[in-house]
C-alpha cells in the first residue's frame, strides 16, 4: 500500500514538474483573478489587471484545460483563469486608453478585488440570429 502511494506521489510530482509554459496570453477584462482551482468561486491567489501577460501551462505542448479554465502561471502564482477572459493578442485596455481618467477615479485595492470578482459572478448571454 505504502509502495503504491509512493509511486503515485512520484508520478504526480513528475506530471507537475513537466508542466511548462506553452504560450503567452493576455488578460482582457478590466480586472480579474487567478483562482486556486478551476472554478469561478475558488479562492483568489492574486488580482490582475487588463493586459497582464499570462503563461498558459501545458504538458508536451498541449494546454492543461480543466472545464472552461486554463492552468496558468502568473509571477509566482500557479492557478486557473477562465478561457473567455484571455486573448492571444495584447488587448486595447480601458486603463490604457483613458489612463488619467482611470487614475483620477481613485480605485482602492478592495475595489480592484471586487471588480475582478464581478466578472466571475456575471452570467453572460447574447441573442443571435439563428
Amino acid at each position, binding site marked *: 500500500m505504502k509502495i503504491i502511494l509512493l509511486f503515485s506521489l512520484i508520478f504526480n510530482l513528475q506530471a507537475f514538474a513537466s508542466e511548462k509554459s506553452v504560450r503567452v496570453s493576455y488578460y482582457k477584462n*478590466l480586472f480579474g483573478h487567478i483562482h486556486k482551482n478551476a472554478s469561478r*468561486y475558488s479562492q483568489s491567489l492574486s488580482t490582475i489587471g487588463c493586459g497582464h501577460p499570462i503563461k498558459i501551462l501545458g504538458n508536451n505542448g498541449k494546454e492543461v484545460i480543466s472545464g472552461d479554465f486554463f492552468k496558468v502561471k502568473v509571477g509566482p502564482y500557479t492557478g486557473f483563469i477562465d478561457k473567455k477572459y484571455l486573448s492571444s493578442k495584447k488587448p486595447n485596455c*480601458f486603463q490604457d*486608453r*483613458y*489612463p*488619467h*481618467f482611470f487614475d*483620477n*477615479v*481613485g*480605485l482602492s485595492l478592495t*475595489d480592484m478585488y*471586487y*471588480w475582478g*470578482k*464581478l466578472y466571475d*459572478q*456575471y*452570467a*453572460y*448571454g*447574447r*441573442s*443571435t*440570429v*439563428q
Partner: protein
Amino acid sequence: MNISLILLLFSLIFTVPNAQEVDAKGADAKAKEDKEDKGLDPMVAPIEFDKIKDVIQKDRLGSEVVKKKAVIKKKLRNRNIRKVEKYNIPDSDEFWSFFSEYWLVKNATVLRWDFKKPDYGLDESFKKFLETLGIFEVRYKILLVNTPDITHFALPSNENEYIFLLSVPFIRTLDLSKLEISLLLFEDYLRVKNGYFKKYASIPGLENFIGGNFYQKDFNVSLLEKVARKYDDIIYDKGFNFKQQFDVTLRMSSILKGNAKWWNGYYLMLGKIDNLVKTNVLYQKYLKIYPSPELQLSWLRPKKKKVL
C-alpha cells in the same frame, strides 16, 4: 659592427634637430601661403548660400529640408496629441458601462453579489426568450444579488449591452419560473431602452464631461460622486414614475399579445408580485420603485364596454 652602430647613432642625433628646423620653416611658409590665398580656399571660406542657391535647388536639397522639417513638425504634433489624448474621458458608449460597474463595485457589500450561487440557466432561457421575440444581437450580463433590497433592475451599459440585477431571495420567495424571470428582465430591458435611467442620472454638466478631455484642467470628481448618488436614488429609493410604468406595461402587453402563454404569464406574474408586496414587509419598498403592480394589472385588464 660596433663602429657602424656608433656612426648610426651619431647620424641620428644630428639629423633630428635639423629635421625639426626644416619642419618649422616649412610650416611658416605654408601659413604665409595660406594667408595669401585665404579668399580662394573653399575649405576655409564661409559658404555663401545665396550664391549656391541655384545649385541646391537643382540638387533638390531645399525641398528635402522642407520635407524633413514637415516630418519633425508632424512628429511633434502627434506626440502632443498623444499626450493630450491621455486625458480623454470615455464617450457615452463606454462611460455608462464603466460607471455602472463602478457603482456595483462600490456597492458590493450592500448588494451582496459576491456569493456562491446555483446555475439557474437564466442566461440561456433569456437568450431564447429574446430570440423568439426577434430581438437579436443583444448582449447582457445577469448579476444575482443576495438581498431583498433590490428585486430586479437593469443598469445602462455599452450600446446593445445590458446589465441586469436580480434578487435571489425575491425569485425564491415568489418561486418564479424561467419564463417569469425572463419577463421581468425584459420589462427592465424596455426601461433601459427607453432611456429612463440615463435621463435620471444625467445631471447638469455630465453631457459635456462625457467624451471630453481634462488636459491642463482639474478632474471633476464631484460630478462622478453626484452621478453615483443619482444611481443610489433611482435604484434604492425613487425608481420610476407612473407615466413610465404605464408606457412600459402597455409596451409589454403589445409585444406579448402575439403569444397568449407569455401574456398570461406576465399578467399572473404581476398578480404574484402584487400579492407579495401587500403581504411581505420586506418587499414593501417595491411599490416606490415600480408603482404599482396593482395599477399595472388594471392597465392590462381589458376594458368592459358598456352595453346601452
